[in-house]
């Protein structure tokens, strides 16, 4: 079973890297980019075969390590 975790900065937390990407896009002529937020994707190969159990475990992983919930939020896809 595979899980994909998307980690993004929470709304309202300024993203200096996203801003730099936005500026760079502007320099390349992409004038219509009004905002860029940069996050990360973490793919997990899990031994679990039950989707609900897997999701529960991945939530725990996010809370304990994969995301810093002071500044980040996460979403989980199980497949």
């Amino acid at each position: 079973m595979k899980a994909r975790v998307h980690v993004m900065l929470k709304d309202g937390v300024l993203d200096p890297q996203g801003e730099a990407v936005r500026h760079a896009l502007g320099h390349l002529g992409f004038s219509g980019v009004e905002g860029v937020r940069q996050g990360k994707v973490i793919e997990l190969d899990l031994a679990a075969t039950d989707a609900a159990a897997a999701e529960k475990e991945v939530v725990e992983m996010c809370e304990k390590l994969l995301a810093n919930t002071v500044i980040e939020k996460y979403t989980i896809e199980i497949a």
Partner: protein
Amino acid sequence: MKAAVITFPGSNCDRDLAMGFEKAGAEVVRVWHKDTEIPAGVDVIGVPGGFSFGDYLRCGAIASRSPVGQAVVDFAKKGGYVIGICNGFQVLTEMGLLPGALMRNASLKFVCRPQKLKVATTDSVFTSGYGLGDEVVYPIAHHDGNYVIDAEGLARLEGEDRVAYRYVGNPNGSTADIAGVLSENRRVIGMMPHPERAVEGAQGGTDGAALFRALAGMGADA
């Protein structure tokens, strides 16, 4: 006074930190990240700067969950003194011992230079060797020192007089120019600037020595 200095893979200020303590007259024990206990009789733990675990995932994230990490948390929760410098500050926020988080510098540039700071409270053993508002120069060297905290958290820090140092000339975009913060019990401090790189003349300044002298002078009350 006995200090424990932790070394993670990728720490690079651990020897400087040990020397800072030793020069002030403290006994230093070195602790490896796989150790699960802090040696008996330790009064203060130093979490050094560097790039623990290559800054993978987030700065300080892996170190804060390493075997010794839990021992540091337990030590702090029992009222032990802990100082985290630079990457050590990132580790302490990742452990949840200090509020807020350290993000990429607003300039996106690695900053490395002597940095002027203002001592924002003297109500902690770490800053007790200075006067309120004293200006000191400690070196900074970091890419992720942009201190972020929400409005509520900031109000709490300010209201409880828990900002230890502020930058004079903000180098990284930190909220309210915050360079160092204290825990609720004032026994845990995290700071981006490096006092251990300012303890003898050959380093270009000695403004950090008073911090280590104050710690070393704590005696047996810790």
